[in-house]
């Protein structure tokens, strides 16, 4: 029997997991596009619903974009572990002689690249519908770049805890929402601050701090949650 001797480094393993999930996402494009389409639809429907008054739209814009990003992110969380859970590959991931936190981090990164990054890229285009200034758009991008990974990471904990439960989607949202609200408040707040000419340093630093904290804790917490859910 072929005995393979070459070992993968930690980084190589992370890259393997990320590549695996990205390839899977590319081959099931419908799932991926749903998140983006939802985001675009929600943001685009608001100007149509509330009327064309530019002043009001400009004020609403950060909140609308952020709420849409939050909802889109929560919708996509179901996909993080459920496919692997259903076909048995999640068990194999748990049985791998590797750091489960590392493998989970790889999945979260891939998930963000597929569900979070497109939102960051789409947001400035959508922000134009709200007559946002160039400065506001840049801050929006920065805030989403900091915030969407947090949503993915915190969401991963919820997704792991509700694995295989009926009505899991709603449950994930309920669990994760309270933790995501600070991201929403500071993220939207940063864009509102720049529009009013105030400093955004505090908002963005707080978000960066939340990002670092999530990065440090959530992979491990998610790994433990997965072990509990798989019993």
């Amino acid at each position: 029997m072929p005995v393979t001797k070459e070992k993968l480094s930690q980084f190589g393993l992370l890259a393997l997991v990320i590549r695996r999930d990205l390839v899977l996402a590319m081959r099931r494009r419908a799932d991926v596009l749903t998140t983006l389409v939802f985001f675009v639809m929600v943001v685009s429907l608001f100007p149509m619903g509330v009327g064309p008054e530019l002043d009001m739209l400009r004020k609403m814009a950060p909140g609308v974009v952020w709420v849409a990003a939050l909802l889109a992110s929560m919708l996509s969380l179901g996909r993080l572990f459920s496919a692997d859970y259903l076909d048995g590959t999640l068990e194999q991931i748990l049985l791998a002689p590797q750091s489960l936190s590392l493998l989970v981090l790889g999945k979260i990164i891939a998930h963000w690249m597929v569900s979070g990054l497109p939102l960051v890229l789409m947001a400035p285009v959508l922000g134009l519908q709200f007559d946002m200034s160039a400065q506001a758009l840049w801050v929006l991008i920065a805030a989403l770049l900091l915030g969407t990974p947090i949503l993915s990471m915190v969401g991963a904990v919820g997704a792991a805890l509700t694995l295989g439960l009926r009505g899991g989607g709603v449950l994930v949202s309920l669990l994760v929402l309270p933790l995501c609200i600070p991201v929403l408040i500071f993220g939207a707040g940063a864009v509102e601050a720049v529009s009013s000419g105030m400093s955004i340093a505090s908002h963005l630093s707080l978000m960066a701090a939340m990002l670092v904290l999530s990065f440090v804790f959530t992979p491990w917490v998610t790994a433990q949650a997965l072990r509990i859910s798989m019993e």
Partner: protein
Amino acid sequence: MEGVNGSGKTSLLRTLCGFMTPEAGVIRWCGEDIRELREEFHAEMVYLGHLNAIKDELNALENLHINAGLAGCALDDKQAISALRRMGLRGRETLPVKVLSQGQRRRVALARLLVGNARLWILDEPLTALDVGAVGLMQELIGEHLSNNGMVIYTTHQPLDVAGVTTRRLSLS
């Protein structure tokens, strides 16, 4: 391991893998508690349950690469293809798994046994969906594994006939 449906064979195997904590007692691998060993134990074992644990959207080669990578080894294409050919999947290596039959998918799932150095094989009804030829192949593979100082714990409704090895039968009924 034998027993009627519902006697707890799968639960026992999953407990041996470490998914579930036993109500009482300790599971030891080479004298040490598997819950302490964790990754070292996982490095020495392979588990195949009822589910094939392969991705439908990937082809057999890609699945095998991932399985090997998770087990900590980088697999080269030649080794992967020869493992798949041994499992009778010649010509099917690059087809997406979802177009394969149930039996062929089971063979892809079993190909992971040929890749890596696991000493312990924990197999839950490995012969499901396999044709007579594949059952014979499994007997061969298990025989080879055992003669290389390997160990196999399996449940089945059709006991395998592997010559010249020590078999302990555990009946759960």
